[in-house]
């Protein structure tokens, strides 16, 4: 598509945006893949509609505020990237655009405070834990709170698990087959420490030595996707240092963090660390991909056959193209019958902090996902991302159906440990 964006004036970030807009031919193949278009049925809430809006703003033909409501409603799920025949890097476009527009836009003091609150707590496990404790007190007065504050409370668990400090090195059990660095993730450390526990155990059992570099921080995805580019760069610079060592791979067990690290080359486009960012991104792998490439040690059969639905996290399936590997891992557990979730490619509505900032759309999508999961006839739902986990659990519960929800590696760990699967979430 033609544009008249002044790329020179916008600099390296402008190049990224202009390149994406050029690639769009407005064919509309993205429409059925876009969750907000499916729910709202309006062109401005579709990927190609948003591309038009961004183009017009960047060209100076449209006030930024006119386009903002629709760009804010984008989940950033990148379902459109999978559907797009002409290869528009929409994820790069929307992140970069948000980074460009955020410093210029007007927000109310309450909105600003809310956003700072999220940015200053979620990426820091200790602060997030303290805030979550406070939040549980807030649950008592929940009916009195404005909707913006209700959403985060709804997603908090009844009881917060004990904090589990992570060691710096976890040795391989038996012969060492690989040595990797591990990004521990932020929110999951507080909400579901079981994810990391299971991941580290399975890796050790498979002969992988894991290093959890001390200097690491949040991957920065949360900041990047909400337009806080400066903050994202800060986090990313910390990680460039922390993960500089010589490892066979850099592993994550959270879809959002994995794609966050892989986005560093876009984030650092035009910055001095560009080459270093590309090197790091090239070594990042989701734990499911790594285990499959390494060759999984034999898994003992389950005590009884189990119908498992694998939920594709958008930042694995759409952003990283990882769909087959987690399924293959699950199929290698004897007794697992894998079922597909209808409309599985559509986002569950979690999408980072989206379910906190756009609670109504997020809830519609969450319920839709929960209903599809129930329709699949699965006994257990498995996913590779903390956000999806929380969203799915919340909405299954709302429908009165507390299906067991696990991380992919948790199911694998339980299979190795011959644990009973009826115990409930760890």
């Amino acid at each position: 598509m033609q544009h008249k964006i002044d790329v020179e004036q916008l600099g390296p970030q402008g190049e990224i945006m202009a390149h994406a807009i050029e690639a769009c031919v407005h064919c509309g193949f993205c429409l059925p893949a876009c969750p907000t278009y499916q729910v709202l049925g309006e062109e401005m809430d579709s990927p190609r509609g948003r591309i038009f809006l961004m183009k017009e703003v960047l060209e100076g033909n449209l006030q930024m505020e006119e386009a903002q409501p629709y760009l804010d409603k984008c989940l950033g799920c990148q379902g459109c990237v999978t559907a797009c025949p002409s290869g528009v890097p929409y994820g790069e476009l929307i992140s970069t655009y948000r980074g460009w527009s955020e410093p210029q836009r007007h927000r109310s003091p309450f909105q600003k405070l809310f956003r700072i609150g999220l940015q200053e707590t979620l990426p820091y496990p200790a602060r997030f834990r303290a805030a979550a404790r406070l939040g549980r007190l807030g649950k008592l007065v929940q009916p009195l709170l404005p909707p913006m504050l209700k959403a985060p409370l709804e997603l908090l668990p009844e009881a917060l698990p004990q904090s589990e400090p992570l060691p710096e090195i976890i040795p391989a059990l038996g012969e060492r087959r690989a040595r990797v660095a591990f990004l521990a993730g932020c929110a999951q450390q507080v909400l579901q420490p079981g994810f990391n526990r299971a991941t580290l155990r399975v890796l050790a059992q498979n002969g992988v030595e894991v290093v959890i570099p001390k200097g690491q921080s949040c991957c920065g995805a949360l900041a990047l996707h909400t337009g806080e580019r400066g903050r994202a760069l800060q986090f990313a610079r910390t990680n460039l240092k922390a993960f500089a060592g010589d490892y066979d791979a850099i592993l994550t067990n959270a879809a959002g963090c994995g794609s966050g690290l892989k986005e560093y080359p876009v984030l650092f486009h035009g910055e001095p660390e560009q080459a270093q960012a590309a090197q790091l991104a090239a070594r990042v792998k989701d734990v499911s991909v790594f285990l499959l490439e390494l060759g999984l040690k034999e898994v003992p059969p389950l005590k009884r056959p189990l119908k498992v639905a694998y939920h594709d996290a958008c930042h694995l399936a759409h952003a990283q193209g990882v769909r087959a590997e987690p399924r293959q891992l699950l199929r290698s557990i004897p007794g697992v019958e894998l079922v597909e979730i209808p409309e599985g490619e559509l986002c569950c509505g979690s999408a980072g902090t989206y379910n906190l900032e756009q609670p109504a759309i997020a809830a519609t999508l969450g319920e839709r996902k929960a209903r599809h999961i129930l329709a699949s006839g699965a006994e257990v739902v498995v996913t590779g991302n903390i956000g999806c986990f929380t969203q799915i659990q919340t909405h299954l519960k709302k429908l009165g159906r507390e299906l067991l929800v696990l991380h992919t590696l948790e199911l694998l760990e339980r299979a190795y440990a011959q644990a009973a699967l009826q115990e409930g979430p760890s």
Partner: protein
Amino acid sequence: MNPALTELERLFPPGRLLHKPGELVPYESDALTAFRARPLAVVLPESHAEVQAAVRWCAKHQIPYVARGSGTSLSGGSLPIDGGLLIGLNRMNRLLRLDPVERIAVVQPGFINLQVSNAAAPYGLYYAPDPSSQPVSTIGGNLAFNSGGAHCLKYGMTSNHVLAAKVVLPDGETVELGSESLENTGPDWLGLFAGSEGLLGIATEITLRLLPKPETYHTVLAAYDSLAKAGEAVAAVVASGLLPGAMEIMDSLAIEAAEAAVKAGYPLEARALLIVELEGETPQVEAEARYLEEVIQKSGAYEVRVARSNEERLKIWKGRKAAFSAVGRLSPDYIVQDGVVPRSRLGQALQAIEELSARYSLRVANVFHAGDGNLHPLILYNGRLEGELHRAEELAGEILKLCVALGGSITGEHGVGMEKKAYMTEMFREADLAAMQRIRLALDPQELANRGKMFPGETPAQSFHGAHPLEKAGVISRE
């Protein structure tokens, strides 16, 4: 907001009328971005009665309108009219009835083409017309443009699969065209409506014919070292008496683009690929497959592959169907052309297109429904380079004239829309066009429905640069 728009807004539940700049910008183009126009407003009806209300409002205030579903027209057929109303039908997307015994489905106009087959699949049925845009284009738009697709070689176009339609005429009156039975009484009014490009009214309920799913498919991919050989192979297959479900050709540029988009496993070094698909009952398909193999071998293919599984078959088709949009990877801009030549003159047409491409120094990718001679040359250009768009348009025009000269047509399935109205005079005599216009005026004397499309020449709405009479009278405004 001006009084007329306020009146329209009151006819609908809150939130259904879009009129702010940020709401209108995304509706300014369909899938032909060379044209843009900003409508006065967009309305999103959800029922027949609401469509009727919108059309009556247009008739009352003499405001031209365009109806659109997913906005995927490649001819600019669903381009808004500057200052007109855009009636978005994408929310009218319900399946009203599916009768597996009668083999019919009744859908609203915003129902997606592919969803018809998905809904019919549990009964072993499907909907045959398969435009490449089928995952996104709507039945309403398919009917308005009489869409085709790869499998129209054997099954015909949309008009062959629509039994009835409930239509809101441009004056707001409702009529029922056709019936659920295959036999018609009186003239084929529905046939007149199919392909009328939104000029005769808006269909709000469409009855479709479903077919039993073929028991077996046999999909063959043949690679050639020249486009002409692939073209001759098509003629040879037809001459052999076989009637495949589809016969498609892609040239090297199209192969490159499609392969980059979907990794279909196409041989990248091929100058041309021929896809032939046989379908039907297993014993028949098996016998035909042996015969086809002989014909293809004789045609000089240097590599022949047969899809061994349904996944392989779908991969082959996915590449073909993504080809248009995938060309966006090769060039920032391109024109998708759509012309028809008699099958026997395919080789001649392709040769001529190649010469034109060289003369205009513009790359042309070819993807086409070879079986029915429906060419889709994609003219690649860079709109940033001075004069290149103009050259591309001229080349596109030359190709259309060529099609007519060879005894074909200026459009196979994309419609005339904005893009080809200037070429209608190549195809039709003055008396032909005048007769069509008389029929149109009988139903729409104010020329409100999709004004400015299909008929050649400028229309009052387009040539008009000053204020609309209603603007002058203070009834409407653009802000």
